[in-house]
């Protein structure tokens, strides 16, 4: 778990964002290319690489889905590039219904209220699929990892919905 080590935080799906942000700034203060502006070109290249890696680590650790995928891949289960589709008809059915609902939002009598209501549903789903992740990823049982992988795949759907919702919110604002 190199990223956790890099940021000097415990390997745990539940992170302390304030500590991560604080340590991030300390790390950048040490490696950022601007701190090496008068060094040789080789040093500068090294600084750019290190700073980019720290930025990448931050993005990964901060994002709930990326963080889970990263932890899982470090355990030997890499699902980041998989093409596999989800085998859960019930879940997929629910997703289709939610998508239809999403498309109707723009025509709702009170779009603001409809968006807020939909947002609450997304939050509920997010909670449902991420609540077990911390325990699953901390486990040494491979079956738990597979269960985590399944939760992450579902979370990805939920995050896509959230993105779509934001796009719709934007377009409603922009008239």
């Amino acid at each position, binding site marked *: 778990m190199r990223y956790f080590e890099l940021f*000097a935080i415990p390997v745990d799906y539940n992170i302390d964002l304030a*500590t991560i942000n604080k340590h991030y*700034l300390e*790390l950048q203060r*040490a490696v950022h290319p*601007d701190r090496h502006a*008068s060094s040789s070109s080789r040093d500068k290249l090294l600084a750019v690489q290190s700073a*980019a890696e720290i*930025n990448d680590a931050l993005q990964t650790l901060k994002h709930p889905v990326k963080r889970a995928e990263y932890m899982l891949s470090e355990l030997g289960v890499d699902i980041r590039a998989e093409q596999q589709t989800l085998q859960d008809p019930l879940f997929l059915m629910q997703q289709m219904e939610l998508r239809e609902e999403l498309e109707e939002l723009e025509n709702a009598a009170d779009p603001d209220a409809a968006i807020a209501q939909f947002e609450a549903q997304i939050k509920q789903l997010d909670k449902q699929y991420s609540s077990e992740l911390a325990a699953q990823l901390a486990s040494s049982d491979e079956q738990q990892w597979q269960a985590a992988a399944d939760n992450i795949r579902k979370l990805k759907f939920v995050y896509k919905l959230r993105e779509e919702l934001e796009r719709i919110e934007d377009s409603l604002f922009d008239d």
Partner: protein
Amino acid sequence: MALLQIAEPGQSAAPHEHKLAVGIDLGTTNSLVATVQSGEARTLTDLAGNAMLPSVVQYQADSIVVGEQAAAAATQDPANTLISVKRFLGKTQAEIEKSYGQLPYEFCEHDGSLAISTVAGAISPVTASSEILKTLKQRAEDSFAGQDIMGAVITVPAYFDDAQRQSTKDAAELAGIKVLRLLNEPTAAAVAYGLDSGQEGIIAVYDLGGGTFDISILRLHQGVFEVLATGGDSSLGGDDFDSLLVDYFKKQTGVSELSASVLRLFINKAKACKEALSQYQTVNVGLEFDGQSHKVEVTRETFDELALSLVKKTLRSCRRAVKDAGIENEEVLQVVMVGGSTRMPIVRSQVAAFFDKEPLTSIDPDRVVALGAALQADVLVGNKPDSDMLLLDVLPLSLGLETMGGLVEKIIPRNTTIPVARAQEFTTFKDGQTAMSLHVLQGERELVDDCRSLAKFSLKGIPAMAAGAAHIRVTFKVDADGLLSVSAMEKSTGVQAEIQVKPSFGLSDDQVANMLKESMTNAKDDMQARMLKEQQVEALRVVEALDASLATDSALLDEQELGALKAEIAKLVAVRESATTPTEIKAAIEAVDNASSEFAARRMDASIKKALQGQSVDEV
């Protein structure tokens, strides 16, 4: 501390001697140069005491005039007097015509990139920009009795794309300026304000210049200026407000077809009228041309009505930036106004209403960017070794690749903190396919046609395999200047795919090198001598940097390693003195670079470990 420092021959006697570094605001309408003296940033003036250099270059058959004098010639000689060329950097003729309508120039193509026909030949926007930079460089050197400039921080609009940034850097190279950093204008302004006020929290920088608009949301915390989000429009600025007035003049006078010089007259009058309206409620504009005489009355109310839609456009960018930053309007502690165009009352009142806060204008909006850039340059050149200032900027526009059906797949989303590196894997879709072409784009839209084309790459030499078997890993890297580079590799065989870069806009490296050569011969300058001097300065920099590193971290090397490195450094010091060609020094610098690479890597590791010392896992 020793009272007397004894230096070896060839070594600088005072390693912490103040170095001349400048901040340059290369603006659409005006440009400025500033430097830090006795801890304070100040703009440098010309002999007449003016800090602002109009960004105007007049080309004559055998001379080039820059600044005020060139601006004065604009109405008589519109075709050869290049104004607001910054708007043309990294653009095509079609884009320029679409954005700016009628212009008094004759565009042409020169070596496959955009140029303007003048009596002195085809002039590219990069060349014209380099003339402005040369003038500012000269001003700085004259201000300090001919002392050489060690480097410059040059500001660019935050919303500049890769082609526009690269063009700016090319212009600096042409002017013989070492670019320490391209710095985003709003970030520079934030530095000037932040260091001045010492306040911490979230600030918004609203920067409306002559030709560009930026909005940046930053978090200030213990010397760190962290850009959370940025947005804007790289072709919206004061010039567009002028052009609204030009249209209004046309309507009022009933004159629709304007010659180049009358158009320039209208634009100048429009600019003056706009500026006067920031002070007065009503302005009478006299337009005299071709034997005609017209008087047009413009009230502030009329102007505000004309301008409102443009101002609203900037506010939409503000809303998106606030949202991208993941904050609410109320969390914005201060709103900083930058750029001459923020003097317009309609802009101030609309921005105040949007953020529900009276915007700050305590530092001259024309100078604040140059001052901030000078402060950053001072740190980068090493004049303030104890400074804890750090600027963390973001990528303004998403980077992506063209995929099937003319769609863009985003590889790095906008507002990602830079520097950043991201890799994406692709595969072949035909058996035995050995080449692949990739199209790099920048922008937020889904269709290729709606995004900015940055470059087209051909990957050749992919080993022949069954369709889908080759895994080509394309890596995008964006450095701290916001500049992109791309590399590619076939994974299973490790074959580094050959990349051909063809910039869609701007100039290729060869073109820049050629222009540099041409400009040298034209100026009857001795290119060899200049390059030798550049390498001598570079060698000195390398030696000083290594000496400083060795002074603190030599323990990271064993005796043998240390001896080998010191020997290479000593060689470089000697070569620097004795060399008669730049290549000799260059080779010696490379040797030192190679000898010090392990040392550099160990130092970086050590500094990462040290950064979080005492914050180990158990203590958290």
